[in-house]
């Protein structure tokens, strides 16, 4: 009798331990499960006209734009909870996504991380309040990347006719070619601006770093470039000076790298 009681109590203890183990496993993985279910995704593809323009205004999150060889625009977005509303519009050759307007009056919206693929000749105009922006393989008329506050801007393999990149706190990296007659502007409040361009480039330069006076021309230093304002600005011409290049970094450095 005593033997069977002992057996029952041992079985009870084993059952208790098993239940506790199972519960601990469930509680350990619960946040991960919640995280996965909290992230929503969005995907849509639009046919693109020859000079299609992508215009995107994000609130927070990263935006990656890649040029591809198809005549269509593919938008993929990963929305963190609480998920934002996305209502893309296709208006006479422009794909417009305005998350600020679409979510006006809503509080505490999660990040929206975009991956957008566009035809190589597309015009790209992307803006976010916070987050990194990246554009690759685009050769259209315009590439504009604007971050209102914090985030890095990375523009690689760009041959656009006009490039305008601006951020508050963060780095700007441009790796591309400059077209004759093009306009190129890079502006930052604090961070490093690095421009990697071919030695055959031709531009009129105004580069200003008033606080650090850290302007490194590298291979592009020439007798036609001169430091003005106690070294706070470099102005001059490289090559025939066919395009215009303006670089301003209020509290950071500027560097030119030969491609």
């Amino acid at each position, binding site marked *: 009798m005593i033997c069977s009681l002992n057996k029952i109590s041992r079985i009870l203890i084993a059952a208790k331990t098993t239940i506790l183990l199972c519960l601990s496993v469930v509680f350990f993985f619960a946040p991960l499960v919640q995280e996965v279910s909290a992230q929503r995704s969005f995907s849509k593809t639009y046919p693109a006209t020859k000079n299609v323009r992508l215009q995107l205004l994000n609130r927070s999150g990263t935006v990656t734009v890649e040029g591809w060889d198809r005549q269509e625009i593919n938008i993929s977005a990963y929305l963190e909870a609480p998920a934002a509303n996305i209502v893309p519009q296709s208006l006479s050759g422009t794909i417009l996504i305005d998350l600020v307007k679409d979510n*006006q009056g809503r509080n505490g919206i999660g990040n929206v991380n975009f991956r957008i693929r566009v035809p190589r000749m597309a015009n790209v105009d992307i803006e976010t309040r916070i987050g990194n922006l990246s554009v690759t393989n685009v050769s259209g008329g315009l590439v504009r990347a604007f971050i209102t*506050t914090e985030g890095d801007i990375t523009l690689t393999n760009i041959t656009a006719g006009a490039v305008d990149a601006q951020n508050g706190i963060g780095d700007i990296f441009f790796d591309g070619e400059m077209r004759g007659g093009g306009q190129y502007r890079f502006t930052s409040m*604090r961070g490093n601006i690095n421009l990697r361009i071919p030695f055959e480039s031709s531009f009129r330069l105004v580069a200003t770093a008033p606080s650090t006076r850290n302007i490194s021309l590298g291979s592009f230093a020439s007798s036609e470039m001169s430091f003005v304002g106690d070294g706070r600005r470099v102005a001059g011409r490289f090559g025939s000076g066919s395009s215009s290049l303006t670089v301003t970094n209020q509290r950071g450095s500027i560097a030119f790298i030969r491609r």
Partner: protein
Amino acid sequence: MTCDECQENISRFLDNELDETSSMSVQTHISLCAECAKICEDFAVILDSCNGGKPSELLPPNSQALWCRINNIIESEAKREPVAPEPPKRWFGRSFTLSQVGSAVLGIAVISSLLTIVGIKNYYEPTAEDYTSRSNASQTTFEKVLSKVGLTDTPQQARMRRLQEQQAAIDYWNKRVQARREQWDNNMRDAFDRNLREFDQAVEEYTLILQQDPQDDLSGEMLDSALNEKMNLLRAFSEL
């Protein structure tokens, strides 16, 4: 953009007929200029009332009878006052012959044409950047003369005026941001504050340099740029 250009474009701006760049320029100018903002507001009210009102509300009751009465009054007043023949005009107390008047007009035309040609050669319309980036050295002779006479501002005066305008706009957007910021999440609020501090430090730095050396045009230009960016930051966050 000048006030005249803005006022010329206001009607088309309200009708959404301007291209994106012009529309942005008008919007920016209105945010900076109280006078143009008032004109824009008046236009908008007139447009609203025209669009919203029924045609019957715009006509007075029995309008035909009203027109008859107005016609009668005009006719009776026209009969009462016979038109007296005007005496020949005399200038400066004496009469001139036609040839004298003609040669005087011709002389004035030649002189004003010469002045205009000289003026155009020496002058071009200054942009907003010029107000802050141009130095005394880069002023044309014509501009120097005008500023000495007091007809235009010197670059320093123009800079001060622009700074005041920018500060007014910053105060306006700042009030709107303060009303909205409680609704942002912590990340957004922290990022905004960090960036605003950065702008404020830059503004403080350039203001200090300009107090020591008002002729430092590069600092003037950078101050203008920092204030513009601060204004854009506030405007962007006031929409969130």
